[in-house]
């Protein structure tokens, strides 16, 4: 971006943001690989593309707009190229990244919204303050914005326009540095003033792999250590970087570089995550077609392996202090992170997970396992009532895929439950997934549960039972359409 224009008083440079709304959040490696195609389609038109996250990328609009004859023409060409590649997208052009992202959200699918130059403040004025904390703006003011977005409406400030009319000192006094950044954003300025010194050349860090690393995991593991070194070097000079360029060279000389948005907010783990996405996106197509069971599928990078990985901070700014422990509710000490990353390097990123309590009715839905290092967001909010939830005490052994079972009554006929939750006969014997027949000594139910009846393909109607067999084990079983399943065991 034309960073030298953002001294105080000048409006920030024009930015074009391309947003693909159907991209999964949080991103998975398949999404990262697919998004690489979108980025290369945009790169064909404008060489310097910055990836914000898999699903959104940004370019400086001034130069390409002059080349293509206007911003409308530029946006039209880019949307045409991306939709021609088979991806739905929308674009926005405005002063500065924040306004451009909001413009991209406001655009209709397949079109671009262009905010007039120099009028960023007027463009932002009608937006509610909740955009400071919304999911899509998470890259810039992730958690600090949540407090502001909650508190400002209670103080009588509902829109960014009203927030911008406050004196800047008040915003900083009340909310600290994030408040100052948010205030500059609301006024249409870049959130951080630039550092006056030009950066010295030796802030980049690199690692060589000899012999070349054929799999992605050791490279990602090294990337975390490199990112820590880079952050330490920047912090020692009181700087933070706005973008980080990740450059990977393979053994046959091919080079792949990608610019990632950093804003000084990414941890070393997050930088390593972006290296993983970049490597996933760089896979040759043949590797993606391999069978899932084969070793090397989805893990092997370029043929021959990676020989060099380097991280180059791009556009450094003065660093503000930043609280630790923003990610997750427990501070993950370095020792635990090292151990988890080592196991992830052995078994894969998804092998080490941390449970996040989630909402849900069945025993398998009560917690979402999130891979170590990813954001801990539950799939379903845990603090809702969830009527029909299984009662406390909950079972200790939960079958992720329900086991087929057979439950018969005293005469040997299968037990069924009508739509009105009426039992055909009391259950007498049970066999779990082909095991020995056990006599049922106590049972309770049926507890009917009808989930998502408003969507025919996702509707589930089942009745749950608690069964105690002669050996003292208690089971949570469910019958759906006459078929019995074991959902959990009270071990």
């Amino acid at each position, binding site marked *: 971006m034309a960073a030298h224009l953002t001294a105080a008083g000048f409006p920030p440079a024009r930015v074009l943001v391309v947003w693909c709304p159907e991209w999964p959040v949080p991103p998975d490696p398949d999404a990262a690989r697919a998004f690489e195609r979108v980025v290369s389609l945009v790169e064909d038109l404008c060489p310097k593309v910055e990836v914000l996250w898999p699903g959104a990328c940004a370019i400086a609009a001034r130069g390409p707009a002059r080349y293509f004859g206007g911003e409308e023409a530029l946006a039209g060409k880019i949307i045409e190229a991306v939709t021609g590649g088979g991806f739905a997208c929308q674009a926005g052009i405005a002063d500065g990244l924040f306004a451009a992202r909001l413009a991209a959200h406001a655009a209709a699918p397949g079109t671009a919204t262009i905010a007039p130059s120099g009028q960023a403040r007027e463009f932002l004025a009608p937006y509610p303050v909740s955009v400071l904390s919304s999911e899509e703006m998470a890259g810039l003011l992730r958690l600090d914005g949540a407090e502001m977005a909650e508190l400002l409406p209670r103080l009588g400030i509902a829109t960014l326009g009203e927030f911008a009319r406050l004196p800047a000192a008040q915003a900083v006094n009340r909310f600290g540095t994030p408040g100052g950044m948010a205030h500059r954003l609301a006024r249409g300025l870049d959130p951080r003033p630039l550092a006056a010194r030009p950066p010295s050349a030796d802030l980049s860090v690199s690692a060589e792999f000899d012999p070349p690393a054929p799999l992605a995991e050791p490279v990602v593991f090294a990337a975390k250590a490199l990112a820590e070194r880079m952050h330490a070097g920047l912090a020692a000079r009181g700087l933070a970087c706005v973008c980080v360029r990740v450059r990977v060279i393979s053994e046959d000389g091919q080079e792949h570089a990608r610019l990632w948005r950093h804003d000084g907010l990414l941890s070393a783990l997050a930088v390593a995550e972006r290296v993983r996405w970049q490597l996933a996106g760089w896979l040759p197509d043949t590797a993606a077609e391999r069978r899932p069971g084969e070793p090397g599928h989805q893990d092997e990078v370029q043929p021959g392996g990676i020989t060099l990985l380097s991280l180059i901070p791009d556009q450094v700014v003065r660093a503000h202090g930043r609280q630790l422990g923003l990610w*997750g*509710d*427990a*501070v993950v*000490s370095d*020792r*635990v*992170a*090292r*151990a*988890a990353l*080592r*196991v992830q390097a*052995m*078994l894969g990123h998804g*092998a*080490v*997970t*941390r*449970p*996040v*309590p989630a909402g849900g009715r069945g*025993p398998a839905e*009560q*917690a979402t*396992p999130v891979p*170590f290092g990813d954001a801990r967001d539950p799939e379903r909010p845990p603090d809702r009532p969830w009527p029909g939830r299984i*009662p*406390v*005490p*909950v*079972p*200790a*052994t*939960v*079958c*992720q895929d329900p086991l087929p079972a057979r439950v018969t009554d005293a005469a040997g006929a299968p037990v069924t439950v009508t739509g009105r939750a009426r039992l055909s006969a*009391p259950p007498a014997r049970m066999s779990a997934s082909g095991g020995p027949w056990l006599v049922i*000594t*106590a*049972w*309770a139910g049926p507890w009917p549960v009808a989930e998502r009846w408003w969507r025919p393909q996702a509707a589930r109607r089942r009745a749950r039972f*608690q069964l*105690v067999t002669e050996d*003292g*084990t*208690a089971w949570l079983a469910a019958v759906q359409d006459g078929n019995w399943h074991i959902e*959990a065991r*009270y*071990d």
Partner: protein
Amino acid sequence: MTLTFIESVFDIVTVGAGISQARWLPGRVNCDGASPSDAPQPGYGALPVLSALGELLPGGLARGSVVAAGRWSLLCLALAAGASVAGAWCAVAGVPQLGVSAAVGVGLDPARMLLVADPGSAWPQVVASLLDGCELVLLRPPGHVPAQVRRRLEAVLRRCGGVLVVAGDWDGAQARLLVTRQEWSGIEAGHGRLRARRVLVVADGRGAAARPRTQWLWLPGPDGSVGLADQVVTEMQETG
């Protein structure tokens, strides 16, 4: 091996109340924040256990030791709960069917748990790496554990001062706990529901813990937590 006894001061624990506070021991480091020194002090101190298990494991879980807990059950999670409440990180390896809310009910903190559902064939290396980071590792080994692997893991344990709770057989475990009887209460033929389970736990081990001890426990109690139960079944109150 000398065991340092804990001076844990517990508040009154009743079935139905939450898990109370446990004072954290010196020995390993305070997990929340920077460690005073990264060099672990092996064999010093012990991890606390829930007060309901205090009779069965009077010295707590000695650092550098292995506890064999029989078949995988809520008892393994209950053994880890005392340390988790006090701030330790717990890792669970080899249990893809873990019921996390049952673990939370017993007292484990999900923010300080690491789950490795399938450690694969290189599970001894995985467990050794986990022991470097976490104070307590719950392991369900895939089948019989050869003697060489056992010796190597015990050496890692002594070096890093952690505790390994094994849901299976482990020759030479310092402590062994087994659930010998279980009775569910609250459920009849066609009415009621599972409310609580009384279990009889037998503990023995080596050295100072060689004398077998038995204890009746509510595992789980009506609110999911672990508590002491008397021989005589007390009246269960209808909590709705």
